[in-house]
């Protein structure tokens, strides 16, 4: 896997893609997952087309489901502990301890193995807001 990733071509950008930000203690952190996660009742993933789902930061573990397409992608770990793929509890602990600034109000989920170019599609083409609780 490491050699596969290391040998992937790195895209070039017309603007500066790497930004040195604040210290972690001053940052708001969001989870961007490629585990095919979404809110229960939201649109299941149905292809590697770059669409994504928004997951509210106040979601309960029982309201998060996984529709990752691959039959070779393990789900049994997620079933036992959602932090294994969506470490929201761990992030909240780090925020409470002041190690990170805060946890974002919304998180984002894609279908894994999607071409990164597809992931760059802007909303509203690719986004599913679903019924985000107020």
């Amino acid at each position, binding site marked *: 896997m*490491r050699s596969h*990733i*290391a040998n992937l071509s*790195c895209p070039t950008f017309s603007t500066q*893609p*790497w930004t*040195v*930000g604040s*210290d*972690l203690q001053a*940052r708001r*952190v969001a989870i961007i997952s490629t*585990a095919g996660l979404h809110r*229960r009742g939201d649109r*299941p993933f*149905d292809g590697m087309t770059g669409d994504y789902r928004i997951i509210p930061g106040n979601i*309960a*573990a*029982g309201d998060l*489901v*996984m*529709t*990752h*397409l*691959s*039959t*070779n*992608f*393990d*789900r*049994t*770990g*997620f*079933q*036992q*502990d*959602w*932090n*294994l*793929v969506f*470490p929201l*509890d*761990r*992030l909240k*602990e*780090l925020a409470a301890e002041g*190690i*990170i600034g805060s946890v974002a109000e919304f998180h984002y989920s894609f279908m894994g193995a999607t071409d990164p170019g597809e992931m760059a599609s802007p909303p509203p083409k690719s986004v599913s807001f679903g019924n985000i609780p107020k």
Partner: protein
Amino acid sequence: MPFELGRPLGIPNDPVLQRRILLAALDLLVAAEGPVLVDFPDEATQHAGEARREAVVWACPVNFASSAADETDLDKLVSAFKREVAELRPWYDRGFQQRGRTAVGDFDPRSASELFIDFARGHTPKLVENQSLSVALRLAAHDLKCSYFEAVIAKPGSSAPDSITFNRWFWQETAAGKILKVIREKCLAETDKSLRMIGTLLLIPMSEKND
């Protein structure tokens, strides 16, 4: 990360390890320049070894009334599948009550089994509005497998098998695994391109395909 696909934070219910992994990932955010590619320091075998030791002693804690491992007749297989789903249902419900959550999404065990039995028998399954048969079959297959896992870990005294052990049991020893292989063969014989694609790629893992 030296972990299985689908387990980026390492080991379920191990908050200490999960925290180490998360902090290692967050440290990448403060790199002076990028892109960055850094190995997590643990060896893959360090965690895989623990899982394998547990796998050796795991056995399904639910005893089915009959085995479907060698069943070839469709009617007998369907009967065994129905009994299996019914026998596991109380344990699935108990697990749901204990944990307060289920990873089953669109198809509870009964609706998933009805979908597969209808399709296996050549009937037209009932679908929810705007859901294609190919998507329904894929989602139901994952949900059925999820319900089996949650059922077998719910029995008092049972331990969670690692994914390899669970997959071996599900695909080789249950009527559910066997009927999903029947569904796959039917999908491959369909003229509908999306059903053939589901049968080719998205119903059973590569390790269980004989072609």
